[in-house]
């Protein structure tokens, strides 16, 4: 059976969320773990934008606004975390 792209997206999003919960339940922290969490969040949100919101087939500018937003917000969250270490 051939799955729709949106179904693949849903399965990936569910899997990444469960993996993130496992990290949270284990009480893991630190720069490496936080980097992984932020990277997973970037992948998840870009998947939602592309395959759920339909931005993959929209004009470049419409998609770029969301991608730049995600990179900026998640990057700044990472920066704030890094500042908290020093």
């Amino acid at each position, binding site marked *: 059976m051939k799955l*729709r792209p949106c179904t693949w997206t849903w399965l990936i999003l569910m899997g990444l969320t469960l993996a993130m919960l496992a990290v949270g339940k284990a009480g893991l922290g630190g720069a490496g773990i936080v980097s992984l969490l932020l990277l997973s969040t970037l992948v998840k949100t870009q998947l939602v934008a592309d395959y759920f919101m339909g931005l993959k087939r929209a004009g470049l500018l419409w998609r770029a606004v969301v991608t730049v937003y995600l990179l900026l917000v998640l990057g700044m969250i990472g920066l704030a975390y890094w500042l908290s270490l020093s």
Partner: protein
Amino acid sequence: MNASVQTTGRYPPGDFAIWIFIYAELLAFGIFFLSYAFARANNVELFNDSQLLLNRTAGAINTLVLITSSYFVVRAVAAIRDNKAQLCAHWLLAAILMACVFLLIKLFEFYTKYQEGITLSTNTFYMFYLSLTFFHFMHVILGAVILTAVMLKARRGGYTREEHTGVETGGSYWHMVDLVWIILFPLVYLIR
């Protein structure tokens, strides 16, 4: 915006105005997220200790619920593009039910914190936790109301393969509500 314009691929699904609204909402949530992140940088111990008292499982279940709800909305849009209005309404109803599950779980979390005597003034972490999640909670309610209006119109046969901008508009807003929660969950519940 009419359906023929959307099929050119230049515009995202839904009405032009909703996308301006979505970008404005993303900006508001982004400022909120960064305020939290930089406030945490100055109070790491307080934030880490307070975060331990959150119900991570409830947060994760709500993430799974919202993602699934968003998926149902994608299927609703696909159904109306196939001219299956009743199927579209059924997928939308499933999405709305998932929104209700999200709200119930969140209310349970709010109630638990209230029972523990936690308020906005307990500390900086809880000020952010309660205000951020309540701000999002209100967006879920608004999204559920929009989806309900769209579902009722779909059930009456108000959308067709040719004209279904309303379904795409409501769907796009709902995906935005999902997207911001996907950032909120690790930021508030997991990162430490």
